[in-house]
């Protein structure tokens, strides 16, 4: 099976010299959901921003067989759908439907078709009734679903979600996990939420100081890096 994403020896340094990525190797295969763990500042978000070319570091990145470079950025960005942590930054148009239609319109789809596709995507996430509402009036969970619709409407092959369950209440989290489970795309899930990772992911990687320090099943990595607060507390009480 050909990997959907192949990252080879990725390095990235910020303008002020801080090394954010120090030689990352990564592959994503069709049908997989990979959880990405790591402390804040370990490079997780910096890493995913490279996958659709928002950041450009040194190293090889291939998406769906294409080498990631300037001239095929548009096609890569159609294939890799990135759902950001801050939904307010992602929903920047005045109404829900206009926001979801933003992607297709940029791809050159005509207005009527864009409107139809946006409506279909909103139906898929269960937010079609809110089509003409302003994003300001939605709850955190609703905004997240609209953001996902805005990505699904572009028909990506890979979904990258950066901390999707932060700021969601438990019912919101459950609804989101249900939705994600039903989506067929391969997924990368950057998350602190161990529970979500357990439910969704079949593999995990652990970032530490800009490199992947461990790979394996979700449970293996949680145990190895003591990443589950509840279990750790139990352990210390023994």
């Amino acid at each position, binding site marked *: 099976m050909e990997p959907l994403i192949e990252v080879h020896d990725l390095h990235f340094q910020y303008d002020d010299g801080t090394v954010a990525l120090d030689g990352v190797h990564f592959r994503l295969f069709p049908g997989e959901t990979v959880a990405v763990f790591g402390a804040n500042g370990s490079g997780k978000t910096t890493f995913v921003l490279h996958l659709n070319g928002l950041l450009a570091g040194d190293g090889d990145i291939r998406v769906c067989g294409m080498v990631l470079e300037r001239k095929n950025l548009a096609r890569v960005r159609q294939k890799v759908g990135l759902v950001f942590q801050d939904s307010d930054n992602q929903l920047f148009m005045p109404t829900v439907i*206009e926001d979801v239609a*933003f*992607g297709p319109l940029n791809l050159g789809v005509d207005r009527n078709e864009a409107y139809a596709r946006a409506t279909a995507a909103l139906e898929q996430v269960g937010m079609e009734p809110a089509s003409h509402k302003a994003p300001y009036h939605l709850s955190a969970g609703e905004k997240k679903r609209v953001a996902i619709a805005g990505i699904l409407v572009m028909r990506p092959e890979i979904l990258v979600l950066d901390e999707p369950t932060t700021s969601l209440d438990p019912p919101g989290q459950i609804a989101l996990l249900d939705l994600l489970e039903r989506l067929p795309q391969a997924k990368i899930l950057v998350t602190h939420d161990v529970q979500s990772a357990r439910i969704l992911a079949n593999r995990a990687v652990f970032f530490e100081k800009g490199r992947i320090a461990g790979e394996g099943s979700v449970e293996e990595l949680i145990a190895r890096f003591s990443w589950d607060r509840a279990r750790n507390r139990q352990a210390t009480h023994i």
Partner: protein
Amino acid sequence: MIHRRDARAKTIAVLVFLIALATARRNFLAVGLWYFAILVAVTIAARLPILAALARVAVVVLPFTLVFAAISLAAGEPLAAITLVGKSYLSALAVLVLLSTTPLPELLHGLEHLGVPRYLLMVVQFLYRYLFVISGEAQHMRAAARAKSGSLKRVFFDRSKFGAAAGAMGVLFARSYAHAEGIHQAMLARGFQDRFRTLSRHAFRGGDAAFLMTAVLLLAGARVAIEAWI
């Protein structure tokens, strides 16, 4: 019925109103009363809360206007005073009715069709979208500052409080900037390249033309009639 009219028709009608009102000189009382009646009728027809609308305009416009009106009165120019209050109040009320029957994004689309530069309108659109987000963050900072320092009032100039407020603004600025970068990334991630394409589809229908003609007749025609006959 009014809510569904094309934004351009409503905008032009309001502009006619504003210009006819601003240039009114003779028999201002009669013209003003007639225009007030029209606005009240439109407000009620659009099912807007009339008393709330009148009160809101009063709160915004009157503090500034009444000062000048009082000065005019004191200087022996009662008509000038009435004109100032009447014109500023009615103009603001008309704009309020327009915005209450037309969502701002639609109004902006209409303005674009009427020739206003798109760049400026897009900035207004984004400003409006993030106005409440940033204001919300500012309010959190105020609440936090209040919790930390007891009272925001001091008898004498307090340098540290002044500096603290400036520091809070610096943080708010940095946060706003970070929002802007995040929005930009989100735009790029969904294929944004050179310009904004919109979904807006506008059709100027027969109903809109009829509305516009009625408005022009009622406003301009009535004023000419009043000035000629009274």
